[in-house]
């Protein structure tokens, strides 16, 4: 019998970083910016949080960390780091009108390198004998769950066994969906992504929306990196551990046809597919495991095929996605 009670929480925890990443990227793409720097930004978010937590733990000693500061400092550092990455992306693509794809890929390369470089430096500083930083004190605060979660059986395991960032991810996704669909800001943002010159002619400040959506989107995505380190891996940073989850988050944006609310369940599904290979008995044959790891990408391709076959206008990417905008362009 497939063990759902242990599988689902694992899938959810695997899905949360993807949910953060895809919500952030969806907001960004709705403004017409195709930010392929998201994988790098998630790295930067993670390492910034790690640096903050590391400095704090080192300065007061792991035994006497204050619960509030242990959460607030990494959180702030993470948001600041990913905000700066988003700002850099906007400055290059919106103000200087550089090519979005090239800029995004450069940021990803930069972010991964940045993470591994400072991660490596911290490992050296800590003088640890394994190539990893362990922040268990900080992580214990991030992983804190409701006290009742242990006593409510399978219900507690499936719904209540997560740290606060996991619930925050779901809340952010739902709020983002509401804003996009129901509010004036959302309407304006969609207009900017669909047709910036229309939005401009309607009196909407296109540049401001692009900057705001991209920077906020980056900050949300950065939280995904932080969650991964502080909660999923219990506060252990090691080089390249975050892997290709950033790209999976971008695939998830397409999978959800640019709807953050769909992203909640879709990210859990992706998370499940991502770890399915650990739950399917495949014996010693590693090749079969690798095939299972392909599943999230295969599903994305299938969704792409289906959504382009249905050819519904609402399910297409924002029309000006990837294009720079300049009002006086002739």
């Amino acid at each position, binding site marked *: 019998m497939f063990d759902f009670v242990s599988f689902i929480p694992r899938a959810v925890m695997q899905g949360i970083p993807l949910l953060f990443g895809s919500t952030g990227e969806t907001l960004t793409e709705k403004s017409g910016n195709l930010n392929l720097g998201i994988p790098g930004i998630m790295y930067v978010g993670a390492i910034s949080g790690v640096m903050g937590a590391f400095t704090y733990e080192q300065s007061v000693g792991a035994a006497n960390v204050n619960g509030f500061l242990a959460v607030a400092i990494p959180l702030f550092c993470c948001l600041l780091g990913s905000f700066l990455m988003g700002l850099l992306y906007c400055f290059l693509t919106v103000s200087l009108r550089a090519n979005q794809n090239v800029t995004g890929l450069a940021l990803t390369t930069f972010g991964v390198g940045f993470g591994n470089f400072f991660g490596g430096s911290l490992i050296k500083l800590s003088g640890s004998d394994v190539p990893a930083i362990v922040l268990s004190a900080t992580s214990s605060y991030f992983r804190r769950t409701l006290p009742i979660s242990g006593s409510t059986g399978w219900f507690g395991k499936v719904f209540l066994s997560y740290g606060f960032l996991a619930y925050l991810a779901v809340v952010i996704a739902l709020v983002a969906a509401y804003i996009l669909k129901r509010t004036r800001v959302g309407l304006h943002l969609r207009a900017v992504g669909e*047709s910036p010159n229309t939005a401009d*002619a309607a*009196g909407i400040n296109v540049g401001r929306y692009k900057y705001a959506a991209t920077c906020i989107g980056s900050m949300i995505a950065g939280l995904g990196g932080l969650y991964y380190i502080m909660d999923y891996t219990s506060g252990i940073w090691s080089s390249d551990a975050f892997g290709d989850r950033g790209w999976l988050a971008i695939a998830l944006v397409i999978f959800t046809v640019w709807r953050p609310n769909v992203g909640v369940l879709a990210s859990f599904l992706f998370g499940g597919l991502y770890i399915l290979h650990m739950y399917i008995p495949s014996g010693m044959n590693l090749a079969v495991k690798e095939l299972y790891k392909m599943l999230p990408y295969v599903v994305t391709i299938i969704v792409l095929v289906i959504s382009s076959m249905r050819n519904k206008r609402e399910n297409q990417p924002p029309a000006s996605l990837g294009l720079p905008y300049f009002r006086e362009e002739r």
Partner: protein
Amino acid sequence: MSLDNKTAAVKMRNITKRFGPVLANDRVWLDIYRGEILALLGENGSGKTTLMNMLSGIYFPDEGSISIDGRDVVIRSPKDAFDLGIGMIHQHFKLVDVLTAAENIVLGLEGKLDLKAASAKIREICDAYGFEVDPNQKIYDMSVSQKQTVEIVKVLYRGADILILDEPTAVLTPQETDRLFAVLRNMRDAGKAIVIITHKMHEVEALSDRVAILRHGQFIGDMPTKKTNAQEMTNMMVGHAVTLNIDRPDPVNPKPRIEVRGLTVRSIDGILKLDDVSFTANSGEILGIAGISGCGQKELLESIAGLQPVEAGSISYIEDDGRREELIGKDPLSIAEMGVSLSFVPEDRLGMGLVANMDLADNMMLRSFRKGHSLFTDRRTPKELAQAVVQNLEVSTPGISTPVRRLSGGNVQKVLVGREISSAPTVLLTAYAVRGLDINSSYTIYDLINRQKRNGVAVIYVGEDLDVLLELADRILVLCGGKVSGIVPGRGASKRDVGMMMTKLGGRADE
């Protein structure tokens, strides 16, 4: 009240705007009054749209001042323009396709998003002026005239009382145009100031109270419409006297060249686009094709050029010695090599035929790059051809290495038509060749087409301006819903009859 003692709603003084080395507006003066329809005239590229874009906040003037109701203002953005009551309906609609009419109309406004209240207000405006807009309809489901209505409602919703319309009739049918004009007159009588940019002289005369004329970015003059005429206005626009008669030389030795029998075409969605169409196009003759837009004109031309899958029927190409060759089933390239040339000007002008980011010479090469056996392409011939086209057709461009997208619409069209004609075709298919062109450029194009006709080319000319078709074509084929409604001789046909045939199969009015 006479025009003289009204105070101007808008005064533009010494407005100058440069795009790089190009002087788009050069110290322009313009006054706009309330309760008046002003027609802004000028050739393509004379700076009309640029001038109005500065009023609506899209561009910012390099020099000069603007005052509204006697108060000096600075218009930095479209939002500033709205706040001053200025609304512009752009030639290329500024609408977001995936949003509904109501969402588009409230776009950019402040406050809480309440689409229900907005819809109610939209209905109110529609009732007041006699529009029909469904606030919940998506833009991509709308026809061009519906989209335009949404645009007009949008500016009225914002309370604009200075309205600018940039070539509003370019994509409308005659009936839709009449309806639009009625609305505009209503608005004028309600005390709004209206500026309309158009190239169609009969519209200027029918609608406007005053005309203002620009030439090469400079203000030439303005006068009441009643005190002038098409000839004088055209002379002012062009800068020298022009004759406003379209030549129609008699066909010389016409022989059947293209014979179409029972042509039936379905679109990808299975909709019948052409239904049992049969006709013959003769050499040395212009066959005009009339019809409401979307009645199968595009499919007809594309079938002949080999670009459209055909369900049934035959298209024969008949050579001078009477040999016949079936065109259906041939690929576009071999059809083009037989001398069938397609110069199709779609709504966006650049969609088919020219590559916007390539320069003039490279666009000429699109037709010739396959020629020759060398590993390298021949760049000299296209360059010379580009030079010749620029010279012969008076294309105004900084040089032949300018990307086509930088040229104004009229010049783009000249380049396209010039290239097609240069390949010495035996059949010239052209659609909307003068769409959006000013009167002088249009006449250049008519002249080019007539020259082809004299050379014995079979010309198939799809046009939207019935007046021109009646003057230019030797025979007119009228399409109605994909069927041939009738073929009438161009000489002596009446506009009314052809118009009736366009809307009703067989066409005779019931009276």
